[in-house]
Structures are given as structure tokens and as C-alpha cells.
């Protein structure tokens, strides 16, 4: 039963990843990326990381995908469509190398026998986040503020 869930999410992620790579229209590729995000969020839920599954939905599926579509609307559609095709020579050159590196890395995962420990509770994650990881959390908030100011400064009309 558990393996059925793994196969379902795996196939879902596989098909929509192919859509991200090869669809011509940028909007279709971004919608297919949204599908990847939903599949990964389901995988997080299956792995017992409920906080990350929720944040994946809120941050990626809601804010980032909407931001991409919004930026596409600011650029004239003829310009966007001109570069829809993939680069065929680079595809032929890169695919064998990347398949080989995927196989090598996954053989490293297969070699070691790991135990399947129970998922950590949400309470312990929250406690650790606000005690031993308090400084990185604050630095992350400053990083978000700096990124916001930087995005406004770069994207202004008279820049």
C-alpha cells in the first residue's frame, strides 16, 4: 500500500518534470512546474514532514508560481514565444552525461543500508527551530527584507 503511494507520486513528478523540460509555451511549462510542486508536497506529507508540505504549498505553489506568471505578462508575448524551443545539440550532448551521473549517485544510495526511523514530531522541529536555530531564522528574515528591497530597486522603471 505504501509503495503504491510512492509509485503514484513518483510517476506524477516524472511526467510533469518532462513537461517542464520540453513544453514549448512558457505558461504551460510553469503550470507543469506547479504540478511538480504539488507532487513533491505530497511526498513530504508521506515522509512525515507536515510543516514543509504546508510551506511548500504556501510559498511555492501560491507565491512563486503566481510571481512567474505575473512577470510573463509584463513582457510582450511575441518576445516570449521566440525562445520556446529547446537547444537540440545541447540536449543530445548533456543527456548521456546527466543520466550517467544520476546512475552513479543512486548506486551510492543503494550501497548503504539505512534504517527507516519514525518521522520526527512537529513539536520537536518547532522547538529546535526557535532554540538552537534561532540566529539562522533571524538572518533568513533579514535576507528576505534585503531581497525585497533589492528587487524593487532593480526592477524600477527609471533604474
Amino acid at each position: 500500500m505504501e509503495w503504491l503511494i510512492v509509485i503514484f507520486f513518483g510517476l506524477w513528478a516524472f511526467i510533469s518534470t518532462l513537461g517542464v523540460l520540453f513544453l514549448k509555451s512558457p505558461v504551460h511549462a510553469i503550470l507543469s512546474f506547479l504540478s511538480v510542486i504539488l507532487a513533491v508536497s505530497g511526498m513530504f506529507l508521506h515522509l512525515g514532514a507536515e510543516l514543509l508540505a504546508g510551506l511548500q504549498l504556501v510559498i511555492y505553489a501560491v507565491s512563486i508560481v503566481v510571481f512567474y506568471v505575473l512577470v510573463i505578462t509584463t513582457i510582450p508575448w511575441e518576445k516570449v514565444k521566440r525562445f520556446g524551443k529547446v537547444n537540440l545539440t545541447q540536449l543530445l550532448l548533456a543527456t548521456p552525461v546527466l543520466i550517467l551521473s544520476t546512475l552513479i549517485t543512486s548506486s551510492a544510495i543503494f550501497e548503504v543500508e539505512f534504517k527507516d526511523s519514525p518521522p520526527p514530531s512537529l513539536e520537536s522541529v518547532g522547538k529546535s527551530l526557535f532554540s538552537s536555530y534561532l540566529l539562522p531564522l533571524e538572518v533568513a528574515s533579514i535576507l528576505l527584507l534585503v531581497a525585497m528591497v533589492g528587487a524593487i530597486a532593480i526592477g524600477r522603471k527609471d533604474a
Partner: protein
Amino acid sequence: MSIPQAYAIISLFLFFSGLLGIIIRRNLILILVSAELMLNGVNLALVSFDRMVGGIEGQILSLFVLTVAAAEVAVGLALVVALFRLKGYEGSSEITNLRD
């Protein structure tokens, strides 16, 4: 093979297909989307390795990865919009000069 191992394999596939997308795509916005795909793969790998060794550090680290991804999207898309507005570029092959 346990279930976290299967998810680690899936995360490898996500990471390397994101890398393939960065190599083969010509549209600047879709190159950024492929980078997001790579970040998703890294997050999934962190959480599944977390299940293998029984810790919580992986989940916390992938939370920070999520934060950095949001910041990266904001700045990256602002750069794409500024590049288009100043030069009219939209494809990666058109950008050959750093200035002027």
C-alpha cells in the same frame, strides 16, 4: 530498499532534470524555473535523508532553502525584467556583453 531510499532516488531525478533544463532551455524565465526544480530536488533529498538517519536537521535546513528560493526568485525575476526593459533581451543566447 526502504521508502526514504525511493524518495532519495526521485530527488536525484528532480535535481538532474533541473540541471538538464538549465542547459537546454533558451528562455531566461524557464531557466529560473529549472533552478527551482533543482532546489525542490535538494529539499526532497534533505527530508528523505532525515528519515534515514532519524534527525530533524534536514527539515530545518530545507526550510531555510525554501526561504532562499523565495529571495532568489524575487531578485532573479527583477533582473530579467530590468534586462528586458533596458535591452529587449529575453533569450539566454542574446546576452553576450556584461555592459553596454
